[in-house]
């Protein structure tokens, strides 16, 4: 939403953090909004079901570099699934969230991955598989191993979290941030290697942009 080709943005100057769009996807009530709320506002509370999409921003400071996340928190109900491609268009990262106490939500996350694969080229978007609600360990239906294996087989990052206990929440987003910056640097490096490669690796429209560039 913020990255525009051609239109100069006030305040976008050298030194401003890069903006990356991150979408939260997953079944209903797996904790997408709770993860966002915990991460952005350090709060955990009962949240109304998300209708449509909710938006957050957060600046991540990684020491040497910083970036700004535009977080698109989508509604999880199946009915809203069909409009979701509107939300993940142009995304740089996606968190596929499931509830470790609900096998069906894990299966659903895998389906989301298929949708993403249809929309994006391989490697175009950073995807993290997130198993949430580890605080409910007694009701667990999806083991850590299952999650990890699936993520590995698909080349996704993987983490388990508890939005309620604020366990590993910041870590998930930081991991995404680091991965995004690494990819950005790599692309930058390749870009500098010459015209031929430049053409091949050119950032697709609507994706990846350092305001500072």
């Amino acid at each position, binding site marked *: 939403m913020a990255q*525009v080709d051609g239109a100069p943005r006030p305040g976008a100057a050298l030194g401003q953090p890069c903006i990356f769009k991150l979408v939260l996807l997953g079944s209903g009530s797996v904790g997408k909004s709770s993860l966002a709320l915990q991460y952005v506002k350090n*709060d955990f509370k009962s949240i109304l079901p998300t209708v449509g999409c909710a938006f957050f921003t957060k600046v991540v400071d990684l020491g040497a570099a910083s970036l700004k996340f535009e977080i698109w928190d989508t509604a999880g109900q199946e009915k809203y699934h069909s409009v979701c491609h509107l939300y993940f268009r142009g995304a740089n990262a996606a968190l596929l969230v499931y509830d470790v106490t609900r096998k069906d939500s894990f299966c659903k996350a895998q389906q989301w991955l298929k949708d993403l694969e249809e929309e994006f080229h391989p490697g175009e978007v950073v995807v993290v598989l997130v198993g949430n609600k580890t605080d409910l360990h007694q009701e667990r239906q999806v083991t850590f191993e299952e999650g990890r294996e699936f993520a590995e087989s698909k080349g996704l990052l993987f983490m388990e979290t508890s939005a309620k206990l604020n366990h590993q929440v910041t870590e998930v987003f930081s991991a995404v941030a680091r991965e995004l910056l690494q990819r950005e640097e790599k692309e930058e490096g390749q870009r500098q290697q010459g015209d031929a490669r430049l053409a091949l690796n050119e950032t697709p429209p609507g994706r990846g942009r350092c305001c500072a560039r």
Partner: protein
Amino acid sequence: MTCSTSSPSSVDAHLQFPDSSGLLQPPRWDEPQRACALEQICGVFRVDLGHMRSLRLFFSDEACTSGQLVVASRESQYKVFHFHHGGLDKLPDVLQQWKYCAETHLKDQQVADEKTCMQFSIRRPKLPSSETHPEESMYRRLDVAAWLRHLNALGQVEEEYKLRKVRPDVPAGPDSGPGVGAVPTGRLRGAIFFGGIDVSIRGEVWPFLLRYYSHESTAEEREALRVQKRKEYAEIQQKRLSMTPEEHRAFWRNVQFTVDKDVVRTDRSNQFFRGEGNPNVESMRRILLNYAVYNPAIGYSQGMSDLVAPILAEVLDESDTFWCFVGLMQNTIFVSSPRDEDMEKQLLYLRELLRLTHLRFYQHLVSLGEDGLQMLFCHRWLLLCFKREFPEAEALRIWEACWAHYQHAPVTTNQRERHCGAEQDASAHMLEPVPARLPPRDGSGKGPEILLPHQPL
């Protein structure tokens, strides 16, 4: 400046008053861990003015440069910022010039020469009279007395009442309306649109607005209808409870699972739904489940619990609420949403309205590219008719104003035909009241016409 809860490491964290809505867990501002976390994330903070009551500056030195800034919420929660190394003196200038803020002078300070404390409170924005609707001041809130004057002896609702026509058998309330002899003295829709409905009679008036009761119905007929509808409601519920195991599995997966998750997190801060094991939450749940049986094509969409909860809290009776909800659903965008063209149409209207009335903002959206004009951030506003964008009392006023279908602006014949024809779908009326305060600036009257047909109450 140094703020105890702030460091310049990052920006854009929100400083929100913990709203009382849906809080199962009380906010813990003073927890050391929390303060520490905030320290890391707060550089810039925002306060929701809707939740803010006052801003106070307490000076701790003679030069009035150090001290504390205290932000108070309406619920008397406080956020304190410490200025140990000066800078606090810069704030009064800013606040004094800020139009949303007014300095309030504290009584005990009038004697003292030196300032120790300054207080600012939030000024509610007031539209200049040139921007308000010309009829705005003509109406008062619909209170009990006014409502009774709209009911004739049989209990039928009359849109207009004229004082000289008041029947001797209808008791005249203490409020005899402005200007005896003025004709007409009261229009129901105008009163609801401009003044709202007194909370005490909402439960009685809403069923009319939601078309559960017709205006022509007599009190007697309404009682009969209630009995009849209660029976129908029981039958719907029976149908739900007598599903085959297979049907029930499908129903559970498509509807009940989500409803169960949602009702326990809808409007729980409202006194009516508060507390564990609250039977009203169970009523809300049954209404939504029964609705999905009654109208399987719509079933349940997230957001519907937001719509039903306030109705139940006002109408109280489960069956009556159900039928009011049925009426409401016929007039919302949920009818075929969220995937469809209805939403697209609404957003198209909204884009047009913006273009006509707030060109600069429209151009800003254009400059953001495709995503901007798609206005995804407005979906929820339209779906829930602003329920979550305003404090509840204000949101319900908006609802009532919408439901009143008050014709507020001249609609040219052309446009009226255009809109009344193709756009008869009632979801369109969601946007209807918006431009009441948007006068056509260029004299062409373009603004308001976009606004859709007005349907008789």
